[in-house]
């Protein structure tokens, strides 16, 4: 049990143990529960930073647990997993702060925060998974950890949403299980490696491997909300705001996108995929999802449903980036969008939660002149919205820029058209919100004025969106610096021979 393995285990345990303790805590121990949450997340962030430094200097972190011949659990820290781990742990801290403020006096919070920590543990597990079996293990456990969160309110609507979510997630899981076993039956047990499995299998099992690739993408696509499989996402909006923030920015959707990245880069490898010629199919699905998500977002009047549909379209940028796997620029764009989209989306959901919590605003039509009442929240919202559209100083622009360069370099210009059209659509459904908020006058009283105080809303609700909005701006401005997400993504892509 060398130091590297100890580090990996302690990263996982730093949110698992608080989760278990919180489960056993009686309901009224608020301060202890918040304290546990905070030290858990702070310890996790520090450990993750130590691991990132280790990975940067080439140190190998790996734990193997053999189960049965041919199946072993493997946790390994490689640059790609470090990216997703850092994103999850940072956003978990912010979401915990937000959730403590949001659920001020609601019932059975021990359950909520218990499942909350379990969910992050499983997300970190997905990030650190070293082979498809471990990925499958944590992927299925993610559904179980998030289900109680989705139905936290216990109303009939949330239960129907939960049932729907389970139906999609478990069918995807079953397809994924069958595909993983089938792949292992052909290719034999293999870990994630820079170039995927050896091309000799292509000659003998070409068509079967293509079919398995499609199954794998379907299995992972359910959580990445690719079009035919996205039905559960808008319905999961019935959950409380911190849950929808967690689901859409940090855990579930990102796990799906991360799965696509793993399959494309580490399981099949760029070279094999080009030989199999299945990439146009992936880019077609991704492009269709981008357009379809944006078009549907236009028609939604409910703020959170509009954000949900915009998530569906935004996540497919990552799939788009992965579908042009032969272009290094496109891969960089896709990977860096993984982080940027998380930051922007979580800011939007924090602001939507604030509006709902303080002024009881759920619909966009009710947001006229809200900026006067809540300037800071709307400022954060605007920064994130502009980022989603891809206006230069923000992170959104960086990732779209690289995706555009990649598609041009690869010669498939129609993807550039898709990018431009989707940016226009983003503008079309985000700018009216900003115009309503900033330039319209307030018509009539707010639906329910829940909070009046020195600041526009409770401090615990206000600080997280401001911090993430600041990161959205900062990461965009200092994109070329040493420590920015873009630099780390370049470090990752350098490891792959594309």
């Amino acid at each position, binding site marked *: 049990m060398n130091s590297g393995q100890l580090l990996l285990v302690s990263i996982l345990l730093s949110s698992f143990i608080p989760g278990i303790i919180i489960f056993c805590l009686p309901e009224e121990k608020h301060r202890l529960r918040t304290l546990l949450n905070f030290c858990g997340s702070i310890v996790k962030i520090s450990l993750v930073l130590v691991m990132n430094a280790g990975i940067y200097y080439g140190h190998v972190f790996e734990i193997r*647990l*053999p*189960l*049965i*011949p*041919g*199946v072993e659990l493997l946790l390994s820290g490689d640059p790609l997993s470090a990216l997703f781990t850092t994103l999850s742990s940072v956003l978990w801290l912010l979401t915990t702060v937000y959730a403590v403020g949001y659920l001020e006096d609601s*019932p*059975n919070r021990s*359950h909520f925060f218990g499942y909350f920590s379990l969910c992050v543990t499983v997300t970190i597990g997905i990030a650190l998974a070293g082979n498809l079996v471990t990925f*499958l*293990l944590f992927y*299925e*456990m993610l559904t*179980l950890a998030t*289900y*109680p969160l989705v*139905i936290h*309110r*216990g*109303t*009939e609507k949330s*239960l129907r949403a*939960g*049932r729907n979510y*389970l*139906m999609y997630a*478990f*069918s995807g*899981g*079953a*397809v994924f*299980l*069958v595909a993983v*076993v*089938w792949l*292992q*039956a*052909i290719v034999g047990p293999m870990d994630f490696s820079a170039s995927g499995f050896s091309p000799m299998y292509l000659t003998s099992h070409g068509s079967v491997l293509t079919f398995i690739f499609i199954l794998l993408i379907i299995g992972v696509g359910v959580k990445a909300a690719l079009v035919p499989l996205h039905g559960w996402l808008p319905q999961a909006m019935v959950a409380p705001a911190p849950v929808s923030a967690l689901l859409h920015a940090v855990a579930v959707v990102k796990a799906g996108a991360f799965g696509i990245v793993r399959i494309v880069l580490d399981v099949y490898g760029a070279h094999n995929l080009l030989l199999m010629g299945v990439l146009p199919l992936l880019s077609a699905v991704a492009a269709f999802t981008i357009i379809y998500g944006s078009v549907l977002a236009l028609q939604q009047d409910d703020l959170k449903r509009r954000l949900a549909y915009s998530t569906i379209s935004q996540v497919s940028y990552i799939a788009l980036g992965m579908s042009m796997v032969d272009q290094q620029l496109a891969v960089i764009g896709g990977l860096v969008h993984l982080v940027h989209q998380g930051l922007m989306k979580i800011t939007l959901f924090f602001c939507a939660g604030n509006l709902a919590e303080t002024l009881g605003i759920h619909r966009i039509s009710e947001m006229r002149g809200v900026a006067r009442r809540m300037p800071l929240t709307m400022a954060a919202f605007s920064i994130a919205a502009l980022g989603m559209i891809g206006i230069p100083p923000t992170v959104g622009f960086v990732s779209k820029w690289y995706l555009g360069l990649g598609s041009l370099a690869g010669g498939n210009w129609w993807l550039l058209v898709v990018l431009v059209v989707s940016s226009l659509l983003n503008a079309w459904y985000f700018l009216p919100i900003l115009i309503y908020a900033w330039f319209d006058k307030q018509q009539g009283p707010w639906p329910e004025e829940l909070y009046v105080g020195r600041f526009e809303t409770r401090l615990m609700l206000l600080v997280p969106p401001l911090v993430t909005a600041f990161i959205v701006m900062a990461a965009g401005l200092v994109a070329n610096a040493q420590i920015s997400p873009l630099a780390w993504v370049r470090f990752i892509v350098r490891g792959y021979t594309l």
Partner: protein
Amino acid sequence: MFPSDTAVWIVFPVILPLVAGLLCFLFKRGTFGIALAAAIGNFFVVCFLIYQMLVYGPMRCYIGGWHPPLGISLRIDGPALLMLLMTAATGLAVTLYARGYFLFRISDPLRARRHKRQQYYFWPLWMLLLTGLNGLFLSADIFNLYVTLELIAVSAAPLAALSGKPASLRASYRYLLISLIGSLTYLLGVVFLYRSCGVLDLALLQNLAGDGLGISTALVLLTVGLMLKTALVPLHFWLPPAHANALAPVSVILSALVVKASFYLLFRFWFEIFAPIISPSSLNFMGTLGALAIFWGAIQAMRQQRLKLMVAYSTVSQLGYLFVAFPLSMFVDGGQVWSIVVFIALTHACAKSAMFMVAGNVYLHLGHDRIKSLKGVRSSQPITVFAYGIAGVSLMGLPPSGAFIAKWMLLSASFASLQYWWAVVIAGGSLLAMIYVFRVMSHFFVIPEGESSKKNVSLSPLLEWPPLILALISLFLGLISPWVLKIVLYKDSGLLAQIFQGGLP
């Protein structure tokens, strides 16, 4: 052969519960103490036997000192010991749970006398059932297996009828008749076998099992008899009413243990004794019956309105997996035929007993188990609902449960042998399982609008912790699978290995 002194321990799993059963019937007070002592003793003896087997390898004990053609021999090898471990662990949990169950029942003065009587007769019947189970897993003599099967049947029927309700009386009467027919068919098979081989010991039968007509009819009769007792789909109609209407601890015993005993025999006959004369078509036939069981059980489970009936039908469905293992067992990598069956059986035993205990707790607390009106149980019984969730998850075969390992092996076997339809059956089965498990789960989570969620109902720890521990065992069985596989590998190499090399064409 083996140092005879070490073989003396093999007999204790049978003798301990036997003596306990007699004493429980004799005395009126302290019966729980005797039963608990026997259950704990049985558990430790089985652990000691596993240790001994790992040191000395599979062992035999000749009762009365007479060697096989004449006397009866008890044998321990990998699969037998794991089944014994399953029975011992689940048995210990059931003993504790039953104590809590009856204490709760006796505490309400309304029908205290009836529940006292039920408790008094539960312990001896349960101990003698445990004797039959341990005897069956140990025995290596085909007629002795008939006597142990009969011991199980005769003690299981009155146990099922203990609750005294007309529905449970009728169900257990039919159960007694069905298992009687099964035993007689089994006995006829034994007669055919004795007529053609003249020997009763399993290992010697293994040698003499040529492919004569008499022996294959014997196998058919044995199979039909045991299928009746294992409730495979066409012959499963007696199981749901019997298991659902029984008292909670009794339905745990019936569902988790009794059904597995006859399956264990069936699998041992098909894959050890009569392996040379098994044709692939007969294996596929059993596989299709298993697939039928999976889908039919799952569909019925989805339609039930009562929780215990739903769990009973899910037993019918999960047994289907055991039979799907028949055609695929030959293609498991690592070649051990028993690994899939052992994993499914162990996980199902723990998960199903946890589910029935939860159903019992819900019944005790709410007074009914209609699924539609299970509101607010999560807030009043958090630990029970948590145990149900974990048991449901491991029943569905999600990682890291034992069933996941079994499903993984089944799937890789079906892909290795290019029989893709089995993969569809298995994946579909686990999806259907998800539906009927989470249908109930969502009803648990409904928060009743009317009154505020009730404070935690203080169920005694004896009622709440056994299901949770069993559910956790079934969930984390996957993580300890290397050791389980190591034990399973210890087959009774003796006579079986050479004959078995050929395997199937």
